[in-house]
């Protein structure tokens, strides 16, 4: 009864939840349903009996397929090289390769047409005659505009590839080309399929390009366009829409079913490839980049000539005319419409997408899941289909909604909804989960929390969302062309009007202006969003940083706090010269980090603790899930960490060392005989347990995966090490490291160093560091580890990996890991049962039970 009373507490968030679902229902689902109901039997029999319909499907399939294949091949090559070459201006190369995303497809068509068409550039300049318009131009144009999306998908995937197999291939003398075929392509399979679908869908449903260059080749979107715009047969349009929807739906389902999490973090590549490879790669990328922008150069050129192709003299007249209100090619009204639409789509779309992501990630209720699904479903609906649906559904609103700028704004928001929604969702998942509870106990309203905490902490993402929506509203024609009229035509649709009239100069001027606006938008907002994120971060981090030597000295003093320490002893303890130590200590006293009392004891002040705080180990994760197969028979009864050696459980040696240093936030990952670990709580009440449910069907990466969310400035330790010298665990750590003991020869896991950092891990080696399974991960590396563990775990064969391979081989360029020296006898590894018997003879008579 009490429960019932509690639940009646009214939460106004429900209005927002319902409101958002309603918006998406009315403006996405309803138009689609409505469209289906409007189809008549006559429409159906007309379309299905029309030969042109089948011809158009055939044409569309053919050129979409060829275009997709070519752009996938080119994009794979570019992404492969760009992910591997060493080049400082990589960021600009990426922008060069994605430039076609900033202009309407019809502008690309214009460029292609003026290059290859009769009287085009190639014809005029070199006398190269192509057979007019048609398949060739369609394919060239579709490659150009689908290239960026394919490229971005593959490039992102390649940044997270396992590089260790290449090392192996390299040592075996396999050529780069062979390893590309044998390793890279199989790895990319899923991404390639996904990118293939994305590109195919894009080309298949596009009609900006065909409008310009298709000539007599009829594509499906053009067939639809004719039926609707010229013949006003909306029912027929609906049937054709359904066909257009097919590849999009297949692609969507494939993505939802198979796609791995896609939130990527960029990282800097540290591979040093050969000069030849570097040059070759750079050459290939720039070559493709130039091919991509040639169509743009073509229309930009035309925008500055008197009359193409007859009078090629330079002039500004086209621009002057375009911007004078009374000229026949005035674009002022279009420009005004476009800017209004894009700004409104940016503002309203960002708000709605941001709110939807907020509701689906940070509020409770039955609608959060459906809201999420509808939000990402917008990805599958081509603009043309949405446009037709709107024509049907909103006919009755003529004058106050249909026929105004408002309907254009709405259709664009829905059309491009999924990407900004996913950006915002990603941002919300990174904001502390406790804030809602804090607010509840302090009586801070959800509203206030939203505006004063959520928004300030995701402002960078909000800017990116706005920029994405603005840019796409500037270039889209698919949905809006059915919905705009004389008064509401935007720039992009303006191109189609001049296309009909054959005024290439005006088309070129508009295309150039759109490119310019979007380029400014993209670069400006990228910069702005980087800037706000960076200043936010810098404010948090700066202020007090210790250098390596200062850290060593201060941590050493803290370890021997309130004891009498001579400078000589400190200098020896941290292996520094007496002079340097003396300088550092004097500086510390001056800065008030330590005090030396009259009785010569040294004490760290609160300020000193504050300076050490960023290096404080926050917690430890202990991996204890496995079945110690080599320890049979004793592990048949007891998991290895709980086996007693000379009366003490193995894991206790580690836990005692941790707790002695004040590290009591310890999480043990358990699996095999997990119940038995409960006995530890008696001696160690602070222990927390996480279960690894798949410990017996995967390697130890699954244990770290199970604990991934809590990796944060922590030790990650194996539970089966006998820690004989507790000093190997320290309270503070300067940076990420692995414990290692120098050996002249080993057949076990070992490290090689380059400078201070681990450069290579191998099994067996000479003059190397024997690896000991106690590692520390600093703030930055913890964050990367949290992401990389997930990436690798979800990759093909990821579950069979050792977790250590993630930072040390697969993603080693993300991490800088040092070796922390210790003696071999500091930590004893008991590898098998016979070693156990040697160390603890009481096991000699151990019997299977």
């Amino acid at each position, binding site marked *: 009864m*009490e429960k019932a009373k509690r639940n009646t507490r009214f939460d106004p968030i429900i209005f927002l939840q319902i409101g958002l679902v309603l918006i998406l229902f009315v403006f996405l689902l309803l138009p689609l349903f409505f469209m289906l109901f409007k189809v008549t039997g006559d429409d159906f029999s007309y379309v299905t009996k029309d030969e042109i319909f089948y011809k158009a499907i055939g044409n569309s399939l053919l050129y979409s397929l060829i275009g997709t294949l070519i752009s996938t091949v080119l994009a794979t090559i570019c992404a492969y090289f760009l992910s591997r070459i060493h080049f400082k201006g990589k960021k600009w190369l990426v922008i060069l390769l994605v430039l076609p995303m900033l202009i309407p497809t019809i502008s690309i068509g214009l460029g292609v047409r003026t290059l290859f068409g009769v009287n085009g550039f190639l014809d005029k300049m070199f006398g190269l005659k192509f057979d007019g318009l048609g398949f060739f131009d369609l394919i060239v144009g579709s490659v150009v505009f689908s290239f960026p999306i394919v490229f971005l998908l593959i490039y992102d995937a390649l940044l997270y590839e396992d590089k260790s197999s290449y090392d192996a291939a390299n040592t075996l003398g396999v050529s780069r080309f062979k390893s590309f075929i044998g390793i890279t392509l199989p790895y990319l399979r899923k991404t390639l399929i996904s990118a293939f679908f994305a590109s195919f869908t894009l080309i298949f449903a596009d009609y900006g390009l065909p409008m310009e260059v298709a000539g007599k080749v009829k594509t499906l979107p053009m067939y639809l366009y004719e039926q609707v715009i010229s013949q006003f047969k909306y029912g027929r349009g609906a049937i054709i829409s359904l066909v257009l929807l097919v590849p999009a739906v297949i692609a969507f389902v494939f993505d939802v079913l198979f796609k791995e999490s896609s939130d990527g973090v960029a990282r800097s590549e540290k591979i040093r490839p050969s000069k030849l490879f570097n040059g070759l790669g750079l050459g290939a990328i720039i070559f493709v980049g130039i091919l991509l922008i040639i169509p743009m150069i073509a229309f930009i050129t035309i925008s500055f000539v008197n009359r193409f192709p007859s009078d090629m003299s330079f002039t500004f007249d086209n621009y002057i005319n375009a911007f004078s209100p009374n000229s026949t090619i005035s674009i002022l009204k279009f420009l005004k419409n476009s800017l209004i639409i894009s700004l409104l789509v940016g503002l309203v779309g960002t708000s709605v997408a941001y709110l939807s992501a907020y509701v689906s990630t940070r509020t409770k209720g039955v609608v959060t899941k459906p809201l999420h699904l509808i939000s990402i479903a917008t990805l599958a609906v081509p603009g043309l289909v949405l446009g037709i649906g709107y024509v049907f559904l909103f006919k009755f609103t003529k004058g106050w909604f249909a026929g105004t700028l408002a309907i254009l704004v709405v259709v664009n928001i829905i059309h491009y909804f999924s990407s900004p929604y996913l950006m915002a969702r990603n941002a919300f998942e990174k904001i502390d989960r406790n804030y809602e509870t804090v607010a509840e*106990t*302090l009586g801070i309203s959800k509203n206030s929390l939203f505006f004063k905490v959520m928004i300030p902490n995701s402002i960078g993402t909000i800017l990116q969302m706005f920029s994405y929506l603005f840019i796409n509203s500037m270039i889209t024609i698919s949905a809006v062309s059915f919905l705009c009229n004389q008064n509401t035509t935007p720039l992009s649709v303006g191109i189609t009007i001049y296309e009909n009239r054959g005024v290439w100069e005006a088309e070129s001027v508009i295309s150039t202006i759109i490119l310019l606006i979007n380029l400014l938008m993209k670069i400006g907002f990228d910069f702005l969003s980087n800037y706000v994120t960076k200043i*936010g971060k810098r404010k948090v981090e700066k*202020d007090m940083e210790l250098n390596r030597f200062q850290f060593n000295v201060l941590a050493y003093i803290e370890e021997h706090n309130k004891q009498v320490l001579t400078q000589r002893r400190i200098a020896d303890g941290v292996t520094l010269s007496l002079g340097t130590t003396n300088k550092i200590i004097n500086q510390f006293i001056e800065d008030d980090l330590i005090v030396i009392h009259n009785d010569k004891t040294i004490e760290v002040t609160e300020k000193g603790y504050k300076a050490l705080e960023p290096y404080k180990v926050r917690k430890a994760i202990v991996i204890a899930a496995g079945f110690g197969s080599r320890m049979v028979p004793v592990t048949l009864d007891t998991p290895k960490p709980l086996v007693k050696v000379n009366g003490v459980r193995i894991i206790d040696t580690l836990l005692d060392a941790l707790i002695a240093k004040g590290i009591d936030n310890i999480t043990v990952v358990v699996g095999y005989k997990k119940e038995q670990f409960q006995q530890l709580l008696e001696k160690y009440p602070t222990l927390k347990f996480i279960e690894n449910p798949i410990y017996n069907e995967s390697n130890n990466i699954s244990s770290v995966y199970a604990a991934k969310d809590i990796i944060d400035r922590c030790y990650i330790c194996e539970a089966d090490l006998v820690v004989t010298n507790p000093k190997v665990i320290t309270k503070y750590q300067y940076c990420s490291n692995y414990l290692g003991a120098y050996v002249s020869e080993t057949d076990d896991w070992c490290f090689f160093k380059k400078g201070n950092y681990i450069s290579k891990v191998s099994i067996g080696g000479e003059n190397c560091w024997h690896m000991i399974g106690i590692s520390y991960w600093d703030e930055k590396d913890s964050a990367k580890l949290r992401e990389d563990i997930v990436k690798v775990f979800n990759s093909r064969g990821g579950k069979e990996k050792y977790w250590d391979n993630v930072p040390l081989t697969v993603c080693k360029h993300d991490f800088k890991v040092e070796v922390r020296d210790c003696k071999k006898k500091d930590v004893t590894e008991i590898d098998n049962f016979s070693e156990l018997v040697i160390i603890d003879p009481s096991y000699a008579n151990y019997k299977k039970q």
Partner: protein
Amino acid sequence: MEILNDKKISVININKRYNGQIVLEDISFDIKEGEFISMLGASGCGKTTLLKILIGIETPDSGTILKDGVDITNNLPSKRGMGLVFQNYALFPNMTVWNNVAYALKGKKDMLPILDATGKPVEGSKELVLRKRSKEEIKAIVDEVIAIVGLSDYANKKPGKMSGGQQQRVAIARTLALNPDIILFDEPMAALDADIRMSLRKEIKALQKKFNKTMIYVTHDQEEAFSMSDRIIVMNDNHIAQFDTPNNIYKNPANDFVKKFVVNHLDEKVLAIKNSTK
């Protein structure tokens, strides 16, 4: 009826399950005004859930909570006169220390003395009205509580720049600003250094004495519980194993668990200290 006045909080037959699994079973106890109570237990014993039910973030399946004799089981968390200090501080990174503390005060309505024409509270008037605090009133409160926790020099810094101990003091100041009569702590020192723990312990005790607040302190650290508390609730397996003064618990552990978990543990620690100072 005079007994009732003595009780600040009464917890009566609280039960809670998550997905069918029992988390708290028939929990009942009383706490007196001005007491410092620790809830001590290993991870997963239910102590944090109990804390959440007390402040109202979680709902019990059955049972009643009385505060000053009034049933508050169904009150909103912010309407219970309680404050909660979190383990991970949960400060707002985009706000300065001052604004973190002032945030909850701004725009919040309370029963306060009426204002005169100049906007100042009428002195000596006992007439209360429901109103927001003026800027001056907020400033006075915030400056005061920040001074109490010793962070006046840091008022304009952002929390990300500060040490864990300082951040936790900001969190305490944020709670104090709303002047709750009961303050709950959810393992507030779990992330702090031993030395800072010691000094913060003393400070929290001093605060309690100074303002006569009732404090309920969740911890898994026996030493902490024993050094701070008037009485300790030892929890085990979703039940209260023992509720008594530190002295009585040590001398007369109620059962085997309490003996092992509390007494032996303290003995070990004492022994370790003796050995290390030899």
